[in-house]
């Protein structure tokens, strides 16, 4: 730590700035709680809030400019800079909404959303269970597996590949989400219809990416496999599938977002009385916007965790890839 500080003597002003920013922020949040007397002190609060923002910006730019040799320190710094941006955003949101009495239905302050999340954990848990653990996971697994298998078939038979790829590319531009009402009609109101939408939405990205990935192995390596007299399947499993992994994981990442969207939007067309999409559409109708925001926060968290788990798995599987090896 001391050596890093010695190389970068500018670290201490940044820490001091951070302390001032935190103190100012505490003051502003405190002042918001004070009942309003005759004096309108909103300009002061606003000024302080803007000062916090500028200070945080300055601290961040100071920190970003540091060149850190240590990789852990570097990572910590990047995480801190990213997190502080989000925290400042939440802070400004809270202050502006409360200082200017923005109507609750338009934009509730983050603190109210937090309270709502804490108060309705059982409801949120039931919704997550219905939408994510049942619909998304089932549909995601089936859609990705089907896309993968068809991609292998398309790789084995040139004719199929030539026919399917242009169609697959075109379908990825289509508003597939529109099949949601049809699926609800076919498979009923429960999670099966949502899973069906997710299957269709995740199938094509997986197909297109896997087919592209299977061409990623170089000619040299393929020729080497041929000199070993390896069969099609040996080449596939030992060379071409590992080489295709970055592409496959790319599809898995794209699909993680698509799957959540598909399941939630499909619930707008009819569900049993549980599920994230159901909750969002009914609570919007009752103008309980804090519940809607709570649901969205949970969805965002779930989406990020889903994405993060896939990204971690990718690091483990494609440890050889330059983008990961290079750190």
């Amino acid at each position, binding site marked *: 730590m001391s050596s890093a500080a010695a190389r970068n003597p500018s670290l201490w002003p940044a820490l001091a700035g951070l302390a001032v920013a935190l103190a100012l922020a505490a003051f502003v949040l405190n002042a918001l709680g004070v009942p309003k007397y005759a004096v309108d002190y909103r300009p002061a609060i606003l000024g302080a809030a803007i000062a916090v923002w500028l200070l945080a910006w300055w601290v961040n730019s100071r920190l970003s400019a540091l060149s850190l040799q240590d990789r852990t320190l570097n990572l910590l710094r990047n995480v801190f800079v990213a997190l502080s941006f989000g925290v400042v955003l939440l802070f400004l949101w809270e202050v502006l909404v409360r200082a200017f009495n923005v109507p609750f239905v338009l934009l509730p302050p983050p603190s109210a959303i937090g309270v709502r999340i804490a108060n309705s954990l059982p409801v949120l848990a039931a919704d997550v269970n219905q939408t994510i653990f049942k619909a998304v996971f089932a549909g995601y697994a089936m859609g990705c597996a089907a896309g993968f298998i068809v991609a292998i078939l398309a790789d084995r038979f040139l004719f199929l590949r030539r026919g399917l790829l242009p169609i697959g590319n*075109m379908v990825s531009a289509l508003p597939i989400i529109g099949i949601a009402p*049809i699926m609800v009609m076919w498979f009923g109101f429960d999670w099966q219809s949502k899973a069906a939408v997710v299957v269709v939405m995740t199938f094509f990205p997986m197909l297109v990416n896997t087919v592209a990935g299977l061409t990623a192995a170089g000619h040299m390596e393929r020729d080497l496999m041929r000199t070993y007299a390896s069969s099609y399947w040996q080449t596939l499993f030992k060379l071409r599938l590992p080489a295709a992994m970055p592409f496959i994981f790319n599809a898995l990442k794209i699909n993680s977002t698509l799957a959540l*969207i598909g399941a939630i939007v499909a619930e707008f067309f009819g569900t049993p009385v549980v599920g994230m999409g159901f909750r969002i559409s009914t609570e919007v109708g009752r103008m309980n916007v804090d519940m809607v925001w709570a649901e969205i926060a949970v969805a*965002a968290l779930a989406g990020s965790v889903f994405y993060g788990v896939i990204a971690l798995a990718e690091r483990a599987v494609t440890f050889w890839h330059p983008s990961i090896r290079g750190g």
Partner: protein
Amino acid sequence: MDRLRDKIIPVTAILLGIAAIWYVGAYLMNAPFQRDLDRRAGETPTFSEFVVKTMTQPKPTLPAPHQVAVNFFENTFLRKVTSARSLVYHAWVTLSSTMAGFALGTALGIAIAVGIVHVTTLDRSLMPWIIASQTIPILALAPMIIVVLAAIGVTGLIPKALISTYLSFFPVAVGMVKGLRSPDMLHLDLMRTYNASSAQVFWKLRVPASVPYLFASMKVAVAASLVGAIVGELPTGAVAGIGAKLLNGSYYSQTIDMFSALLAGSVVAVILVSLVGLAGRVTERAMGGRPA
């Protein structure tokens, strides 16, 4: 000749295969209901009569391709475009908010990309949040944006366009960051030997280098903003637009209408993506690019 062998024949064969599977599926899915109808009416049709009946139900479980085609043709070409049943009318409603959202989203995406490329703090602090913002199932916000904006008196085109904007800014921002950073060190060094200012580097090197990336990401963005517009039409109470047409169809089990609305949406998507692709090719040619 190669094009015929490598592309047209395989694609046509697969499409025909899909149509065949679709017909079989239509027969299988509509058969139970038709059998039920016949039993009640006391009819015993021959097999071929029965097959024809499964393909001509007014509200089939799965409409046969020709039913969808006929419905699509009637509602597109045979109706006045001002009629509420005309698909052209609905497609136009959706298209207008798609285009508004797409234009806004592209502008926002480019602005963010320029900021990220030139300001290190923005790169470190904003980029992770932009990526995180896309792991949020943002379409879930759509009904709230619509309803809340309606509550304060903003209705019509703008709320839908906002949803499209949100969905379309991301691909453009990410693609443009990549594009603006695509000139390699050699070229940047060359600019430095010319003593070029950073504005000159930007306009004469970075911007031209980013054009192919811009159009590639605009293709993704226009498709995304169409999806946003369609979903944005759902909570408005099914007034107008392709999304409204879908929702109406699902209220009244008008499967044929739903399929032809879906087809109309797909046609719009294909037209939009091709137009962006065409604009990209024209621009590249005007900039003196050679066909690869």
